[in-house]
Each structure stands twice: as structure tokens, then as C-alpha cells.
């Protein structure tokens, strides 16, 4: 049976190409649509020059709507940043943070987004204060639950309690699937080996990760093995990543409205070696999730020193995997270049 879960892409995935001007906004939307990933998520200030400090011309917003219509896509989320460290040496005052979130609510609404993404470090008090305005504008503020944080972390539990106590339907979550990192990603290992980590130390760290050894013990052991510099850095990735349990999402399913389909690598046979998408999709189906899973390719930064990332091919492979897991009858494919 086909699931109610829908496929989308965060245009973050194509950053290596868009940074260099090799893909335009239209290219990003077109290839996503060809793959049947009709939900489009953006980082506002990546896709729209000028946002937020300078502002965005109405013509650019009109162009966005024209592209969404042309390719029969659906706006999903504007990911905003809230630079509360804008002023050197002092944090942005509370009221100004709330005003800044309201500005992003307006921008999200102008783009037709149902959701805007809040970074996990944004204080829940700010979000609760902005929630009534979000409700007025028909926007939900979704906090991105991202490793090293997870649904059992006290910061997230406190946030969920505050959201629920506020009673506002405009407050919820956007989990990033990177928090369910089951295996040490092969592209991370390869990058650290290029930086000089000896194979026996890399072997140890990969195995220790699979054995779920506490990060601090792994770091100490790598020091004992004579590891320095990049070997310590490789071990320290375990401080920021762990194989948290996808089932923890079930407790919060009513507050989860969008998903970041984070991935570091899709192999030619459509496998993400480090993130257990089969288990993840099962949990989402079990919880009755009916929103989008938006591809978020983040392998680019792990391979760019050695090879030019092919973000479109990586997204295509993940979309094929997702379509299969969702029970879709057709295999997503790019149209042959004209």
C-alpha cells in the first residue's frame, strides 16, 4: 500500500552546485520535480540573496511562485537562522529576537510556506512569544531536532513541555534523521584517512561506534593508540553523533510536521550505509506521519576535498530509496537532458 508520507527535497542538498552558479533556483526545483519530490524546502538566505539584512525584491518572490507553479511543486519550509550573535560581544535582546522571528514568519508566508524551521539553539521562550503571530499568518514554527540533541535530551523535553503548555498549534518539531546514525559513515572515514588517520585507528573508531562505546572512552583509547590531530578529531565526531532510537519520535508524532531526510552518501544500489531508513520509515508509518521527508544531502562537505560532489545523482538515489520504502509503484527518474 502506498503511504501517506510525501517526498520532497531541501535545496540545501544542491549547495555545491548553487554556490558555484552551476544550478539556478529553477534547476533545483525542476530536477526535484522530475524525481517526484514535489515538496520544496529552502534555507531562505541561501536561495534568496539579500535575506534577511537587505531584504528580497517582490520580483524574486513572484519568480518563486511562478517556478513552484510551473513544476507543480509545493512549498514546504523556509529554514531561517535568527542570528542572535549579530552584535559583537552581546546577545540580541529578547524582544528583538522575537521581532526577528516574526520577520521570518512574514517571509515564509510570502513564499507560501506552511512551516518555517527554527534552529535547535533558539530559546523556546522566543518561539512561544512568536507563536500567536505565526498562528495569525498560518505558519508553524518547527524546531529542528538535530544531533547531538535528540528526543530524550532535557533541552528538547523542556521545549516540548513549553510548547504543549502554551497550547499553540503553531509550535512543533522537525527531526533531522542524522540523529539516528547507526553506523560510522564511510565518507567520514575516507575523509579522515585522507587527513592522515592511520587505518588501524580508523578501524577501531568505526568498530567502537558500532559497539556504542561512550565517546569519551573512544577518545581516550585513540590517544592511547598514539592518535593525534585528525585521529582525535575523528574520535570526537562521536561526541556529536550517536545512534539514537527512531521510535522516540512516536512520543512526539503529533508535533512532528516535517522531516529532514539527512544523508551522507547514497551508494549505486540505493543504500545509505549509515542511516537506517528502513527502520525510520517503518516508525513514521506506524506513527501515522503524513508530511514530507525532504532529502538533505550533507555528504558534499565530506568529499569536496577529493572530488566534485554530484548532488543531483545523490538526491536521485535517495529518492529512489524513499519511493521504494514508501511503497510507490514507480521508480523516480530524471528526464534525459534535452
Amino acid at each position: 500500500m502506498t503511504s501517506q508520507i510525501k517526498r520532497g527535497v531541501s535545496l540545501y542538498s544542491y549547495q555545491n552546485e548553487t554556490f558555484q552558479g552551476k544550478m539556478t533556483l529553477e534547476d533545483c526545483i525542476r530536477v526535484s520535480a522530475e524525481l517526484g519530490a514535489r515538496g520544496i524546502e529552502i534555507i531562505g538566505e541561501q536561495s534568496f540573496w539579500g535575506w534577511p539584512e537587505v531584504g528580497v525584491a517582490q520580483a524574486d518572490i513572484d519568480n518563486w511562485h511562478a517556478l513552484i507553479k510551473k513544476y507543480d511543486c509545493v512549498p514546504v519550509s523556509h529554514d531561517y537562522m535568527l542570528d542572535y550573535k549579530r552584535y559583537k560581544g552581546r546577545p540580541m535582546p529578547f524582544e528583538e529576537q522575537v521581532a526577528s522571528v516574526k520577520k521570518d514568519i512574514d517571509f515564509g508566508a510570502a513564499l507560501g510556506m506552511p512551516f518555517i524551521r527554527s534552529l535547535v539553539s533558539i530559546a523556546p521562550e522566543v518561539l512561544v512569544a512568536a507563536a500567536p503571530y505565526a498562528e495569525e499568518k498560518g505558519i508553524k514554527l518547527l524546531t529542528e531536532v538535530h544531533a547531538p540533541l535528540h528526543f530524550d535530551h532535557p533541552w528538547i523535553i523542556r521545549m516540548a513541555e513549553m510548547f504543549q503548555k502554551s497550547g499553540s498549534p503553531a509550535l512543533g518539531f522537525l527531526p533531522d534523521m542524522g540523529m539516528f546514525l547507526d553506523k560510522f559513515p564511510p565518507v567520514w572515514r575516507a575523509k579522515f584517512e585522507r587527513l592522515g588517520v592511520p587505518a588501524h585507528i580508523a578501524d577501531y573508531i568505526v568498530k567502537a561506534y558500532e559497539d556504542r562505546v561512550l565517546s569519551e572512552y573512544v577518545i581516550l583509547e585513540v590517544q592511547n593508540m598514539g592518535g593525534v590531530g585528525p585521529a582525535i578529531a575523528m574520535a570526537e565526531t562521536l561526541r556529536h553523533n550517536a545512534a539514537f532510537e527512531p521510535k522516540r519520535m512516536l512520543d512526539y508524532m503529533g508535533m512532528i510536521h516535517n522531516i529532514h531526510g539527512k544523508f551522507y552518501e547514497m551508494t549505486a544500489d540505493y543504500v545509505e550505509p549509515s542511516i537506517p531508513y528502513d527502520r525510520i520509515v517503518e516508525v513514521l508509518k506506524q506513527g501515522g506521519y503524513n508530511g514530507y521527508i525532504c532529502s538533505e544531502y550533507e555528504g558534499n562537505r565530506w568529499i569536496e576535498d577529493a572530488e566534485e560532489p554530484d548532488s543531483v545523482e545523490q538526491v536521485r538515489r535517495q529518492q529512489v530509496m524513499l519511493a521504494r520504502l514508501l511503497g510507490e509503484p514507480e521508480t523516480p527518474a530524471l528526464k534525459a537532458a534535452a
Partner: protein
Amino acid sequence: MMDKLMIVEGSLENVDGGFAFLGRLPYYRGLGLSMIEDIQVTIDGEVIPRENVRFSVRGKTYTLDEMETVYDDRWNFGEKALITALKPGGLAPGAHKLEMAVRNRVSYLPFVPTTKCVKELALAA
């Protein structure tokens, strides 16, 4: 990220009072100028003093100290800024080793990252 893409190939040139090149912010988004803490330029091993670096985007030019309180302008995602180093006489024709290091204040990061790019660029005679 984007380390290798910071210095734009073929952009090194002599200008009035020094030399200049095009540089991009090594980041998946842009940043307001007040959050650019430093842009360090090193040419053939010689560090250009901070006060001798100028940053220009879309026709506006700033010193690095001025940028610290600029709240209405940005270095956009992938935008090629003109980075000028004041150095009387500029550079001799030929190959030069150019280093660019950018230090950003990123709100959500519990540290202040510096990203560096080193490239050998030829200066046209």
C-alpha cells in the same frame, strides 16, 4: 566546507595601491557583515595587516573594523566579494601564493570557526 572554492581562480590583479582578488564565504548560507570577524590575507607568506584589507560587495567598500557594525548589508551565499589588500606597488607579474582565512561568528556554533583557502594564482603581466 567550500574551502577550495573561497578564492576565485584567475581573479588576482593589481589595483591602485595594492592588489585584489575575488573571494567567497565558505558557508552554506550568507552572513550579515557584522558577523564576519576577520578576513586574513597572506601573500607569498606575508600577512597583510588587518587595517590594510578592504571588502567590497555590490559597489560598497568597507574596512574590516567598519564591517563589525554593519547591520544592513550581507555577504551572500556564493557571492564574489572583491577583497583588496593595500600594498604599495602591488605584486610583481607571475605566480603568487595567496591565502585567505575567514573567521565567522555563527550563532548556533559553540565555537568561532576559521576557514582557510590557499591557492597559487598567476598575475598577468
